């Protein structure tokens, strides 16, 4: 069921938590809300659930205005970060509770609980209490409690953040798979951009109570609309360095004494202060032509498959990742190359991207 938010506002006293949020979630989509803590993503999710009153604007679920309705009249299910399993009820009772509140008869409740439990592999645990379960099992029960209801919308509030790293990666895939099998509409809050990128159809990046940018995951990666999104999406984070457009208008110089010249993919007014962005994975060691500049190896780390090189370039720090090993010593000079099409340019003042309008050439094989 689609969700539509129109000019949604949330005030806590004088604190303006959500500043006019417009968002349309088409039916069947998996939408991730990401951003740093305090950006309003959880508040936004909770307003959709009805746990926070909406100060202004309208919220529609499946076309119906539910702005002023309490949670129980919105037909949404929610998975909490803490799982919020009722400690005084068994797994089966936890899962069937919402159905019981809707006065379904006992056999229906039992049948549907069984089906949901089978989907999640929880059949053996139905008689247990939450305190007798592991973290991963509790997480599954929390999901089971949501799917057993067959709700219009699923809401997830950082559901994986209490799991250990390996289980988290595994559950990412399982959760997405479940979403597809249920053909559900899901809104998923996370502070982990990798979760958002790998799971969602549509990613909404929030900052200070506003939507900073939204779009398909790879669009956000390829064409971040602002320095904030550029820095938030992608890991390690994009190198963003201050620079100035040189008199030709076709290149920019990194700020700092005798900074190297980087050729621009477009024409800009000479002397304009800008921010230049290059993703670590778009940098390469270069002898041949194209855009390049000089740096000095400052620090080096290797995970075996990937090598992280920290460089000093015109007294500024930069990171480069290489998918191979590298035999260099600290202090070695290095020539760095990149494809000018990979260069991101932001206005120094507004921090808005100056290249988003440009159609990026299709890039194959980038993950």
């Amino acid at each position: 069921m689609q969700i539509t938010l129109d000019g949604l506002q949330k005030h806590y006293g004088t604190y303006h938590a959500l500043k006019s949020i417009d968002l349309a979630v088409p039916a069947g989509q998996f939408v991730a809300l990401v951003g740093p803590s305090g950006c309003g993503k959880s508040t936004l999710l909770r307003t959709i659930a009805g746990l926070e009153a909406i100060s202004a604007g309208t919220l529609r679920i499946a076309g119906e205005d539910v702005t002023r309705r309490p949670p129980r009249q919105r037909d949404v299910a929610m998975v909490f970060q803490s799982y919020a399993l009722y400690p005084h009820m068994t797994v089966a009772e936890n899962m069937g509770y919402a159905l019981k509140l809707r006065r379904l008869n006992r056999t229906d409740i039992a049948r549907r609980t069984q089906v949901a439990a089978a989907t999640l592999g929880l059949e053996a645990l139905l008689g247990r209490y939450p305190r007798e379960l592991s973290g991963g099992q509790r997480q599954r029960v929390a999901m089971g409690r949501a799917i057993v209801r067959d709700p219009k919308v699923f809401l997830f509030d950082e559901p994986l953040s209490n799991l250990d790293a390996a289980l988290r990666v595994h559950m990412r895939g399982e959760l997405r798979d479940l979403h597809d099998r249920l053909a559900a509409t899901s809104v998923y809050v996370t502070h982990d951009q990798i979760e958002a990128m790998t799971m969602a159809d549509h990613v909404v990046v929030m900052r200070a109570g506003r939507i900073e940018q939204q779009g398909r995951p790879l669009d956000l990666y390829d064409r971040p609309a602002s320095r904030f999104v550029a820095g938030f999406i992608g890991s390690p984070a994009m190198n963003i360095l201050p620079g100035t457009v040189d008199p030709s208008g076709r290149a920019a110089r990194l700020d700092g004494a005798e900074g190297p010249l980087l050729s621009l993919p477009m024409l800009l007014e000479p002397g304009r202060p800008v921010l230049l962005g290059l993703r670590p994975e778009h940098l390469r060691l270069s002898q041949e032509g194209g855009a390049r500049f000089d740096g000095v190896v400052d620090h080096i780390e290797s995970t075996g498959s990937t090598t992280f090189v920290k460089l000093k370039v015109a007294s500024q720090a930069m990171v480069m990742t290489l998918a191979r090993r590298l035999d260099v010593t600290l202090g070695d000079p290095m020539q760095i190359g990149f494809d000018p099409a990979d260069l991101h340019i932001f206005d120094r003042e507004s921090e808005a991207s100056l290249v988003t309008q440009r159609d990026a050439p299709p890039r194959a094989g980038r993950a």
Partner: protein
Amino acid sequence: MKRYLLTAIGIGITGAYLFPLYWMYATALKDDAEIVQYPPTLVPQRPFWNVGEVFFGRHMPSYLWNSLVVAVGVTALVIVLGTGCAYVLGRARGRWVDALLFFVLMMQVLPSSLVVTPLFVGFNLAGLLGTPRLAVILAQTAKALPFYVVICRASFAGVPRDLEEAALVDGHSRLAAFFHIAVPLARNGILVAAVLVFLQSFGEYVFARSMISDDGLQTATVGLSAFLGPNTSDWHGIMTYSAIYVTPILIIFVLLQRRIVAGLTAGAIK
């Protein structure tokens, strides 16, 4: 080895501290001749049990019944009035919550012997002294309510808010979530607070003494105080009375000791 030595010392200290309780029971078992003996015998030499005579001779059934009426009335009233407030104070944050909590604390610290004067005059004007047990219930509720709220509040604050929110999403109204989720999960604290209020009210003295004039409606403490007149010497009778009165209280305490300690600690600290 050292640990068992400490246990032995501990038993000694605890025993010495609780000696007054032992002395009450020991005296209740001594006859009049043994009582006036000096130095006193530590263990009753001719155990002598006189419950029936004191129990009926001193009209204890009526006194205990009246104490029970007061205690049950206060406890019921306090639970009805205070549980919701404790819940809200354990949940909400903000300046008005602080102000309210301050007010509740101020009401808790007022000595009964000081507020009984205006209550007596006010109840007299309102005609409440015609139903003196009700008057005592109303007065004692004002005394016990803040205590109950403070203890229960800590218990409600320990119930994760997420659980109630999950219940809202599952289909409860806030009111229903309070009754079906918050109250069952805070029941330990509620139970402890209610038991303590009950015991306090069962042993209440000032209000009953000041407001109840009809002896047939008097509570057990007032009955005891009449027994404890200035020149009394019937210590056997007094201690028997005390033992009959206190034993149920001590039994409740021993049964719930663990929970009472935990509940008091949480309430006093948070």
